[in-house]
């Protein structure tokens, strides 16, 4: 089956440039990228009308409620949200109930996911059993069963000796470990970032240095063990020099950040709106600007949604007591357009962090507009304005911090393996 995308503004993160052109897709893969070309008569043609055509987003770190909380978010609802947000690969987190910590659970979720959505779903597995930080999970079997990385999510493995053994074992298998850089003692029981603002609001805060302390500890272990390590979220300016140093020293380290930490700051907590309660908490504007610049410089490698669905009951509580986390699959792209329109990052830079880098880091094929790459694509209008209504989201959970926000950037179409998965057929 051949499909032509003509008249497209191609966003090529690998080349770091955008250009107008024509893309030919054959058998689910990109067959040709041309500056200009005319499809043969009768060919199936998508006229992009000058809009942006980019590799589909590879969202590294999505929580789906299966197993355990299918009523909050199922593979089906997460898949629909992803398609609507231009996400063609969901990299699912193992912080489920039970955790994805055995090959049996991994096989179950892999099978469930494949039967529920056309969006690609890859799974990360727990680093320790039950994400309890005590005994290592069956990293070898889980890797054989398809786990792309190992993480206990936002739970830090506190015992350094246990973590060092997990990292040593993972290194032996060439497995990627995703850490959550945070000092667990300092951050326990906090819900905001230390400073004048949190103090005024009466919220228990954590110092931004807790992130660097956690990161420094992890870097010590990475240097000791030689493991491949990805920091899930680097959100503070004062962690960045440590990250830069680790990379300069040749450690196999990458870092990510959630779109929320790139587009929101601590002042958004002003109304105690629990949809803004995140892990780690929103930071100061200086931190936000520094991390945006680090994404532009390529120091921070990955932007993800940190999609964390929560039901209404767990959010309709006082700020301190409410669940942390926000959904983001569907708003990742429009929120990223804020950075584009603000002139902070251009589209190839954004797609380097949204698609190319996460795919590379996880050893996946996608993320590129190159011949032979899978035809996982998103067509979007970066300028189309809209006001977000959270009840229009495809996710079962509606806990978005962008409810009622004015946004620009709409997904016009999403393709996986050359097959259109958005707009949804019934829409």
């Amino acid at each position: 089956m051949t499909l032509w995308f003509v008249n497209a503004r191609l966003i090529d993160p690998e080349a770091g440039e955008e250009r107008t052109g024509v893309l030919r897709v054959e058998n689910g893969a990109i067959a040709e990228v041309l500056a200009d070309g005319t499809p043969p008569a009768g060919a199936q043609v998508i006229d992009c009308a000058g809009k942006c055509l980019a590799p589909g987003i590879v969202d590294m770190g999505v929580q789906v409620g299966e197993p355990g909380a299918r009523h909050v978010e199922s593979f089906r609802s997460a898949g629909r949200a992803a398609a609507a947000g231009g996400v063609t690969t969901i990299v699912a987190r193992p912080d489920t109930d039970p955790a994805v910590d055995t090959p049996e659970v991994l096989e179950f979720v892999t099978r469930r996911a494949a039967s529920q959505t056309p969006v690609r779903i890859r799974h990360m597995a727990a680093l320790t059993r039950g994400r309890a930080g005590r005994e290592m999970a069956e990293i070898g079997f889980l890797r054989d069963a398809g786990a792309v990385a190992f993480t206990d999510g936002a739970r830090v493995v506190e015992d350094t000796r246990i973590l060092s053994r997990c990292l040593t074992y993972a290194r032996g298998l060439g497995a990627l470990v995703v850490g959550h850089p945070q000092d667990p003692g300092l951050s326990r029981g906090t819900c905001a970032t230390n400073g004048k603002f949190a103090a005024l609001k009466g919220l228990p805060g954590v110092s931004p240095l807790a992130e660097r302390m956690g990161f420094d500890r992890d870097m010590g272990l990475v240097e000791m063990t030689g493991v491949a390590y990805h920091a899930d979220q680097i959100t503070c300016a004062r962690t960045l020099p440590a990250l830069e140093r680790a990379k300069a020293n040749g450690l196999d380290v990458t870092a990510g950040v959630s779109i929320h930490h790139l587009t929101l700051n601590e002042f958004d907590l002003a109304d105690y709106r629990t949809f803004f309660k995140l892990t780690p908490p929103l930071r100061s504007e200086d931190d936000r600007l520094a991390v945006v610049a680090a994404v532009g410089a390529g120091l921070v490698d990955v932007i993800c949604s940190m999609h964390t669905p929560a039901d209404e009951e767990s959010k309709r509580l006082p700020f301190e007591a409410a669940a942390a986390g926000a959904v983001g699959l569907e708003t990742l792209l429009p929120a990223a357009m804020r950075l584009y329109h603000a002139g902070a990052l251009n589209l190839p830079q954004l797609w380097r962090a949204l698609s190319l880098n996460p795919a590379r880091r996880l050893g996946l094929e996608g993320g590129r507009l190159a011949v032979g790459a899978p035809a996982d694509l998103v067509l979007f209008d970066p300028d189309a304005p809209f006001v977000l209504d959270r009840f229009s989201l495809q996710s079962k959970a509606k806990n978005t911090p962008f409810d009622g926000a004015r946004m620009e950037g709409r997904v016009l179409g999403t393709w996986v393996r050359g097959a259109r998965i958005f707009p949804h057929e019934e829409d």
Partner: protein
Amino acid sequence: MTFRRAHFLGIESLRPDEITALLDLADEYVALNRSASKHAEALAGMTQINMFFEASTRTQASFELAGKRLGADVMNMSMAHSSVKKGETLIDTALTLNAMHPDLLVVRHPHSGAVDLLAQKVNCAVINAGDGRHEHPTQALLDALTIRRAKGRLHRLVVAICGDIAHSRVARSNILLLNRMESRVRLVGPPTLMPSGAADWGCEVYDDMRAGLEGADVVMMLRLQRERMDGGFIPSEREYFDRYGLDAEKLACARDDAIVMHPGPMNRGVEIDGMIADDINRSVIQEQVEMGVAVRMAVMDSLAQTLRETRQRERLRGMGDG
């Protein structure tokens, strides 16, 4: 050349010719042990005390039998449940024992270096029956004897030692001995069970067991302690067996005539498939036990000779002084 030393504390200080001499003597004892009358008189009139600060059945029995066959009076002291529990220090225990005038002291201790310490404090020959994760020299000798009898030599062999290298005194003694005898030693195991710096021991280190067994003449499996199995150093028994358990498929990577060894006691289905352990064409595990008695007889015989000579010299010197 012969082995003439006051103590037998480790492989580290032994010369190749001493190792060969001990193995040659052990070969003679293998013949004796297979004969109808298994008695010799090398230790006649001597007292041997087996002092095990760590529970042991096989090694202690092997030393006891070796001593008895050589005519010694053998006493077993299971120190794991004795005065040590009442707070006596190792040196006090040594001095107490010394007052009983033993001739041979066979010692196993959970702390590395403890047997050396004891040897400095007593007036008899001390044999290291395993100290911490340091050395287990008679095990290395019996393994060497088993290999030499199966392969006809100890040099230019490829020996793969597999499993928990980090906590194994058997591995350390074997590495020292095989390196000294000019064989190639490969260490195979998960990185969590590989001591740091193992690559600098003159061994090749492998994470991947199939690669590590490629072309091996000898496959030496190590016991995985139960307490190390559950999530601490390895995720689970089943993952360990999948990657590092010796089964027919992995053994097929070694040479067709490769022998399989294990110091015992085995965990069938964890580090070794029962079928392999029982395969009489490959497994020499039972023979290792037999060699154990012979090797220990050879070591004790040699030490007793040294002891007699030393005492003779001291007596002569004493007479001269008088």
